[in-house]
């Protein structure tokens, strides 16, 4: 592989292209284009949300006379604010339940041997990899049978199915990184196993716990498939569903739809901006051993 096969001249010639490709200008150009590709659809929604229905038809890039009417139409006239409230409730409740159940479970998988422990862990992974669309049809029937159609409870239960296995897996990976000697030292000092977990190991894993919490919240906030299946009215509907239903209308109010989309994206975007580090840790921590 080394330079023996070709001369210095050839080496320089081949390397020159790469020196250009690796230069600061090219690197920043690539990143700028990537950011443009990612951000421009959202900017377009933002611009549209400031237009009047007439302004949408005029096909200008910038809103000619910016107005917040679209937000008023979406949030108040169409009752979209209810979906915002529902989303906050559903995402918070799902996150609390999933983290409370999943964190101790992840700890067990990181520390204890028990009969069929690997089989149980594979079951958890299996649950995670099982395609959710496969469960939608039976889930719809179950929810109907138990009178949970059009309830937030029905959506929260679906979120537990979707994210609990993920959190167990992520938390296990975080607990593994903490030396077992820590638990043992705590027990020598007189802690019970539960106290060792609660007062000694858990505080150390808090950054991982934060990552899990943020990921679960974002995922629950984003969830569409089950929320759409379970809820058809504004009593229980979450933001992704409500925004989608704007499009179903005969004459689409594009600027109101854009306003709704912006309202839905703002919380996600804020979470990403403030907790970027945790999200990256959670995404990669959920993948590696």
């Amino acid at each position, binding site marked *: *592989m080394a*330079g023996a096969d070709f001369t210095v001249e050839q080496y320089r010639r081949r390397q020159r292209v*790469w020196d250009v*490709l690796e230069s600061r200008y090219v*690197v920043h150009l690539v*990143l700028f284009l*990537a*950011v443009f590709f*990612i*951000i421009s*659809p*959202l900017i*377009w929604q933002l611009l549209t949300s400031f237009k009047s229905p007439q302004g949408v*038809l005029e*096909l200008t890039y910038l809103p000619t006379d910016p107005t917040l009417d679209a937000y008023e139409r979406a949030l108040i006239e169409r009752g979209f604010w209810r979906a915002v409230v529902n989303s906050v409730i559903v995402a918070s409740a799902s996150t609390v339940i999933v983290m409370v*159940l999943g964190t*101790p*479970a992840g700890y*067990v998988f*990181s520390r*204890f041997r028990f009969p069929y422990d*690997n089989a*149980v862990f*594979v079951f958890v*992974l*299996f649950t995670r*990899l*099982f*395609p959710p*669309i*496969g469960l*939608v*049809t*039976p889930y*719809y*029937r179950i929810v109907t049978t138990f009178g949970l159609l059009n309830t937030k409870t029905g959506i929260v*239960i679906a979120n537990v*199915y979707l994210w*609990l296995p993920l959190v*167990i897996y992520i938390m296990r990976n975080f607990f*593994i990184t903490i030396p*077992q000697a820590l638990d043992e030292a705590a027990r020598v000092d*007189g802690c019970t*196993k*539960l106290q060792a977990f609660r007062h000694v190991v858990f505080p150390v894993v808090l950054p991982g716990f934060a990552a899990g919490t943020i990921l679960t919240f974002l995922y629950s*906030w984003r969830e*569409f*498939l089950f929320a*759409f299946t379970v809820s058809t009215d504004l009593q229980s509907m979450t933001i*992704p569903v409500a925004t*989608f239903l704007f499009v179903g209308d005969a004459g689409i109010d594009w600027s109101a*739809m854009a306003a709704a*989309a912006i309202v839905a*994206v703002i919380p*996600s975007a804020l979470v*990403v901006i403030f907790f970027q580090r945790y*999200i990256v840790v959670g*995404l990669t921590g959920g*993948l590696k*051993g």
Partner: protein
Amino acid sequence: MATEEYRGAPHGGGLSGRLSDWVNDHIRTVLLGPSLVALLVVFIYPAVMLVWLSLQNTRGIGETFEPAYNYGRIFTDPTFWNAVEKTLIYSFGSLFLSVGAGLVVALALNKVLDSRIRNAYSTLILISWAVPLSIVGVTWRWMFNGQLGVVNKVLLDLGVLESSYSWLGNSLSAMVVVILADSWSRIPFAAVVLLAGLQSIPQEMYDAAKMDGATTWQTFRNVTLPYLRPSFFVAGLITWMFAFRAFAIPFSTTGGGPGGATETLAVYIHRFGIQLLDYGFASAVSMFLVAVTLVVATGYVYFILEQIEEIEV
């Protein structure tokens, strides 16, 4: 079992003392039990019902037990094979685009030395990952709208197009749009995973390659790529698997149209199971989707299980 381990100080008598001892002796059950019970209710129950429903004929009124009926229909229904074909095009299109673009972004990010600038870039790029998928769908639907869409507007202003084009009305371009939308939301994930892989490559490897006089391309092929293989594996498999079962984006961008041109299996299942209330057939198709995903996922599980050996306890 508990006596062989550290017990700590005795808790004395009393109800709370005995309760505490019981918790200590059954710590695994106490900590893991609730999760397993929850998974039993929220996963096993619907999963068993899925198998049961797939054996029912639900086409008419009521249900009759006809084990072969739905599975027979799968193989004779031409629209099913259309959905399989579209799912394959969609998932592989998204896989190559997201992982390819993710790699370029990760390589570029890795070259930015100032960590604040790097974080600023990755924050901006991560935003698309956090956007709810149905909103990704309606956004792209809006941008590619035939009359009022910004894409036509830009292309007309630039003189690329002479008249408005109906992007979502044509089978081929509709597929291109949904794949683009899907990749848009998956690129950040691929980039993050690949960047983590890049950053785990020891600097000595690069120093050694430089000493040997390797060109950048040689270094990339012989150092970077081999080290990145596990990250490619993870990013690629996850991206593919999630695109294979994709529902929200094709459903909210095109509704599966025009004429089934972007109807992935998930949209197909939703149409039969929820819209047409033909539970049995939707369940049989779901079983097919589950089987395919799980065959692929098994590979992924083995990959993870290799790492389980690290736990010594």
